[in-house]
């Protein structure tokens, strides 16, 4: 049963990815991205890590997609722009992506992966690891968020003087 489910989620993820890339209208792109994120969350669940799948739903599908939709609507980008250039650049992009995928997947298949040893990861495990030897990265990530906030606000502040 999980086999079928996994294939189903994989298919959904690929469809979502393609809509993000190919759809001229960014709004539908965002919808595709949402589909992609949710299907990945489903796959996490199948891969024995419910913590991540729930996080994925909350953070990605909940937060980031809303961000995108907000900006898309804010800049009223609904009208599909003459967006795709089938020039040389397009061909190179396609070629690069295809080569990348082929080499990657082939590398994977011939590598003697050892067995599939399912370990059920719970929030406790991640938390425990995070606060023991992963502590430094935890603090560093808080600092990363600080930089993100300061930058975003600083950029917006540039326009505050105008209104005054």
């Amino acid at each position, binding site marked *: 049963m999980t086999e079928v489910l996994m294939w189903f989620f994989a298919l959904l993820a690929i469809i979502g990815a393609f809509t993000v890339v190919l759809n001229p209208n960014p709004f539908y792109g965002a919808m595709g991205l949402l589909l992609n994120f949710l299907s990945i969350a489903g796959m996490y669940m199948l891969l024995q890590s419910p913590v991540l799948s729930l996080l994925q739903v909350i953070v990605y599908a909940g937060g980031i997609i809303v961000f995108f939709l907000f900006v898309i609507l804010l800049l009223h980008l609904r009208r599909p722009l003459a967006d795709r250039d089938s020039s040389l650049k397009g061909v190179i992009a396609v070629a690069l992506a295809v080569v990348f995928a082929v*080499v*990657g997947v*082939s*590398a*994977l298949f*011939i*590598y*003697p*992966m050892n067995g599939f040893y399912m370990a059920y990861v719970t929030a406790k495990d991640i938390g425990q690891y995070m606060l023991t*030897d*992963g*502590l*430094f*990265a935890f*603090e*560093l*990530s808080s*600092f*990363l968020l*600080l*930089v*993100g906030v*300061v*930058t975003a606000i*600083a*950029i917006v*502040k*540039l326009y505050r003087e105008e209104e005054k």
Partner: protein
Amino acid sequence: LTVSVGIVLVLLLDVVIRKEKWIVGLLSLFFLIAAGVLAYLRVNVSGEAFGMLLVTPLSRAFDLIILLGAAMTTLIAWEKKGEHHFLVLAAVLGAMVLVKSVHFISFLLALEVFSFAIIGQIALTKDRLGVEAAMKFFVLSVLASTFIVMGAALLYSIYGSFYFPVAYLSDVFELKSLSNSLLFIFAFVLILAGMGFKLSAVPFHFWTPEVFRGAHSSVAGFIATVSKASAFGFLVNLLFIAFGRQIALWGDLLMWLGAVTMIVGNLAALGERDIKRMLGYSTIAHAGYILLAFGVGTNVSIGAAVFYLAIYTLMTLGAFAVVHSVGEDRSDLNYYRGLLKTNPFQTALLVVFLVSLAGIPPTAGFAGKFYLFSSILQAGEVGFVVWALINGVISAYYYMRPVFYALGFEPEHVFEARLRPALFLVMVIGLVGVLYFGLAPSGLLEFTKSVVSP
């Protein structure tokens, strides 16, 4: 320990942001010097910190270079708003952790802190060029980080842990059969691609001239020096600890990468009208030289590379200080026409820095190149050294063009170049550094040699 100083330093400054500008500048400068002194005092202490960092004398040397670059940048960007200084300090913190980290998790986070801080610095302007530079740099830097994350993920699938030494010690990995090496090579190429962006090595150097043109010259200087220094710093850890055994694999790959980077950087700079873009191309060329030293991979060549990086930081930031004083928007070459007549002081400095960048004898640039090439020669790579010398000659030509402009022609635009005390200080530091190390490089050389002892 220096890292924790960095953290305290940045958080304190964050509180101060709301104050007037010059206090913030002063404070950030003070913090940088304090961190510098602390780093210098503890240079021979090495050990394990926080489980993810490995503090070695070599990473201390990189710290000092980063702090030097940041201090000079703060001086150039004196009149910037508070946030700018905060971002500079945040980038310094990111760079310091980046140089020391031997664990992918801490590396990725430090890299992101560093890149986002720089993106913030570029984006803080209102003119279109600056915004465009920020956008381009943002897309490419995030793309590079994504490549590195993917590379790390694939390595994780081989080794089962993100800790570098484990990857090195595990004998499960032998380059014997193609079947288990293709995945490793693929992951390795991915990570190299990401780092290639930071060093603006050949296949990833397209962003450099545009970002240098768009960004404020202090930010451009910062990218040229500190970003390269921290990228090389991490490369040392990555290549020597994680993949130390396969020196054959990445050795000559880096050599060829360096050779190609040099020639592309130099040729592109030949036809350049805009001095900032020219400096951008020159950073590509210099990255090529240092890549050569890394490709050789002996202790001596790494020491020479560190030595060269220190001098390179002094030269480039000095040159950017002059560019800044001439004028942010006057970066086209014909503004430099007849500079000698309008403001002689800047011209004299410009000549010194450009001469040193070209590597002409009396200046430190020559000493740097000399030691770098002699270390490569010792390793028997004569072909590459000859190639590098040819590139040196080419670079001498385009470095000298602004000098001719300044000395020879009649001034088109008569303007009084700004000269604030901070800017003056930067130029003096650069000047003293370039001349001192040019004439008496032995002091710094011993330091770099001692640092590379492990």
